[in-house]
């Protein structure tokens, strides 16, 4: 069966450390993988997109890796800040469809 899985347990880290979130999928062939941030009661906010033929993408303190052999993406926030506390969603953009398939999200809590 098709699955997209993110760590459902909350990730608690100290300010200044690097947060690493994981997204694993099975039985999908995504053309792109996207990461979003969602705050309580709000809509997802687009952060980064990585293509199937890209290994890594960076934007300021954010870095995404994409391994289509392992079927995994890692999302890193370096020098984390309390303002980074939110739920982070990965989403697959599948070949030949016009929709995103979302994971359930991982909640990150950055403590001062």
């Amino acid at each position: 069966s098709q699955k997209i899985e993110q760590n459902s347990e909350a990730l608690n880290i100290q300010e200044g450390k690097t947060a690493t979130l994981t997204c694993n999928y099975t039985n999908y062939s995504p053309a792109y993988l996207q990461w979003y941030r969602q705050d309580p009661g709000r809509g997802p906010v687009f952060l980064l997109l990585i293509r199937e033929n890209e290994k890594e993408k960076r934007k300021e303190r954010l870095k995404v890796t994409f391994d289509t052999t392992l079927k995994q993406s890692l999302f890193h926030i370096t020098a984390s800040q309390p303002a980074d506390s939110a739920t982070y969603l990965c989403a697959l953009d599948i070949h030949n469809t016009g929709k995103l398939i979302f994971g359930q999200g991982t909640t990150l809590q950055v403590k001062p």
Partner: protein
Amino acid sequence: EPEVTQTPSHQVTQMGQEVILRCVPISNHLYFYWYRQILGQKVEFLVSFYNNEISEKSEIFDDQFSVERPDGSNFTLKIRSTKLEDSAMYFCASSEAARGRGYTFGSGTRLTVV
């Protein structure tokens, strides 16, 4: 920065009633979407819309749902006869391209069916 605007932010309706959720996508975007999120669950795709027609819809998007772009700016989701299980956050989103671009989501309409 351009935003996707959704109204109302909250809607309470009685079971069996019709509701219309409204969205104003970003003006130069061509692709429009509705997603929903039941409390504590994943964000789920409902429907995509391009060139004044539905391009894809999920199994959730049955005959009780419809979408419309009545003018050049609004994009609406109608739920004809609401059920308790339709209670959720409904998000409208738009994008510049069908593939390879991030989506801009609105802040959502919280629909409560009682």
